[in-house]
């Protein structure tokens, strides 16, 4: 894969508030990469630096081996889908989509052809002459997409584009965006705080916190092998338990010895054990490795979510059978569902 964009040593501060410091990242051609993190983590700032709406205090933005740090937004071969769509209210659907082409002085025939092509891609051919304020949120979203891709950019930046849509529509649009990205072969750089969105659409997920990359990897990597407590907590739900590696693929926590699959620890090294709520198996008390008391339960549709008290610590467990609050429950975990993380002294989360 070819590197398309490289961010080198990017630093950016707003009024003495350092958002990014010495930030490095590269993005491949045709990649669907998602920057995910809590608000204030610097993800939107990064996107705006790539788009040319903010300039970095120091560092370079390299596009196709050329430094584009000093180019204005209108000179970059990059288009953006804005959070609130930013459609032009004084123009109708057709003129909104044609805007970029008109600025590039394309002929009327070219514009016509391209606008029709992009309207077809987003399934809104019939809306051509509609005014913007007579479109639903989902339709506006599609027009914003059409307006960007009609320019055939090499890179599309998406700033929480689905944030304003309702759940069902958001899920549909996730599929459509993914499909669009694969069909068009455009690099998508997607910013979201929604971890589920990040996991379901991306080739690569970049988890950010406080302007620092916590982990880069495929969605599977990020979910199954979080590198630290932040990632484990932010991406999905986790039970994080203090443990001790015993060597020979054995780990001890809650005064019990478990088999595990991780090996990159020395004997007696303290570690953080991550177990996802859905990875616990509910078993008869006799076979249980851990037993606890159910303190709370919530019905979630597909499963029940139980809060379980084990040795006065609270665990979250997903299970399919109903149990009553106050019941004793026995749990076990398969070795490959136990993930060990290095303990980072500086982390509080």
């Amino acid at each position, binding site marked *: 894969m070819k590197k398309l964009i490289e961010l080198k040593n990017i630093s950016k501060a707003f009024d003495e508030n350092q958002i990014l410091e010495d930030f490095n990242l590269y993005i491949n051609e045709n990649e669907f990469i998602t920057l995910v993190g809590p608000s204030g983590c610097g993800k939107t700032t990064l996107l705006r630096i790539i788009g040319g*709406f903010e300039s970095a205090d120091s560092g370079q933005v390299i596009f196709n081996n050329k430094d584009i740090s000093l180019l204005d937004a*209108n000179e970059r071969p990059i*288009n953006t889908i804005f*959070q609130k769509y930013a459609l*032009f*209210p*004084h123009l109708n659907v057709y003129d909104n989509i044609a805007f970029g082409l*008109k*600025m590039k002085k394309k002929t009327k025939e070219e514009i016509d052809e391209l606008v029709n092509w992009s309207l077809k891609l987003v399934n809104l051919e019939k809306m051509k002459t509609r005014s913007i304020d007579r479109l639903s949120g989902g339709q506006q979203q599609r027009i914003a997409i059409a307006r960007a891709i009609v*320019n055939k950019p090499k890179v599309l930046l998406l700033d929480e584009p689905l944030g304003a849509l309702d759940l069902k529509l958001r899920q549909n649009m996730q599929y459509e965006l993914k499909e669009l990205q694969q069909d068009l072969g455009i690099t998508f750089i997607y910013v979201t705080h929604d971890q589920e969105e990040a996991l379901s659409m991306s080739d690569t997920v970049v988890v950010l916190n406080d302007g620092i990359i916590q982990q880069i990897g495929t969605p599977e990597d990020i979910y199954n092998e979080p590198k630290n407590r932040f990632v484990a907590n932010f991406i999905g739900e986790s039970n994080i338990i203090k443990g001790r590696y015993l060597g020979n693929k054995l780990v001890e926590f809650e005064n019990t010895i478990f088999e595990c699959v991780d090996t990159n620890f020395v004997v007696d090294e303290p570690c953080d054990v991550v177990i996802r709520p859905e990875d616990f198996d509910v078993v008869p008390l006799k076979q249980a490795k851990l037993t606890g008391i159910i303190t709370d339960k919530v019905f979630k549709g597909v499963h029940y979510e139980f809060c379980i008290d084990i040795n006065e610590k609270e665990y979250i467990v997903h299970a399919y059978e109903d149990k009553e609050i106050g019941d004793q429950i026995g749990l076990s975990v398969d070795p490959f569902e136990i993930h060990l993380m290095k303990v980072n002294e500086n982390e509080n989360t």
Partner: protein
Amino acid sequence: MKTRNISLPLYLIWLFVLVFIPFLIMLFLSFTKTRGLDFSHLVFSLDNFKDILDPIYFDAYVNSIVLSAIASLLCLLIGYPVAYILTNLKSNKLKNILLAMFILPMWSNMLLRIIGWEILFNPHSILNSIGISFDLIGSPLAIIIGMVSTYLPLMIFPIYTSLNKLESSLLEASYDLGASKFQTFKSVILPLSLPGIYSGLTMTFLPSATNFALPERLSGGNINLLGNIINSNFGKSFNYGFGSLLSVILISVIFVLVFFINRKDKDGDLLL
């Protein structure tokens, strides 16, 4: 919505009492001859309609409309850049100071400001002491300067409001789609500030066209505008019937103009 339900009829009552009824009275008076306020000698006649054919009144209409139109356009030419600069000022302090500079003069009496111009436009003015002398009284230029200086803020504020309402993401979208600064101004900023321009034009044109103190003080009796003719019919010659007819025509012209402008300014929230 609740406040609206209460205030709407109230507003209609005011409109009825203060605008509609006086208009009907003037319409009625247009068909009469009176001697001042002594309505016991009131007689119906169509003389007013004959009198109005005198070219002097037609000239007054033309003067009013042409001079106010020029003044409004000048206000636009000066006011738009000012509003644009105000909107884009980064320092709030500077912005407030500049806004105050445009608002404060409006708090002083308009007549005083006009008399100020009157003094300066005289060949023998205080300016002689620094070697400058104007002889502008009685010229259209004097009236236009008076109009522009009086009503410029009413052009700046609605444009400033509409520019302020413009979301920065729209400008970013425009740059993002490859538009240069100038293209962005032409294709996004200008069209989206049109409502402000329309209300600015209304708010400078209407009072300019109807003001009577301004031509009275600055025309030196040379130039008749509608405002001062109407004023002299009511205040000097007590010819209520004729004054009413002139007013009714003026109100009708204004009504038609405002009707067209309101169709452009759909939000209607730009008229201060």
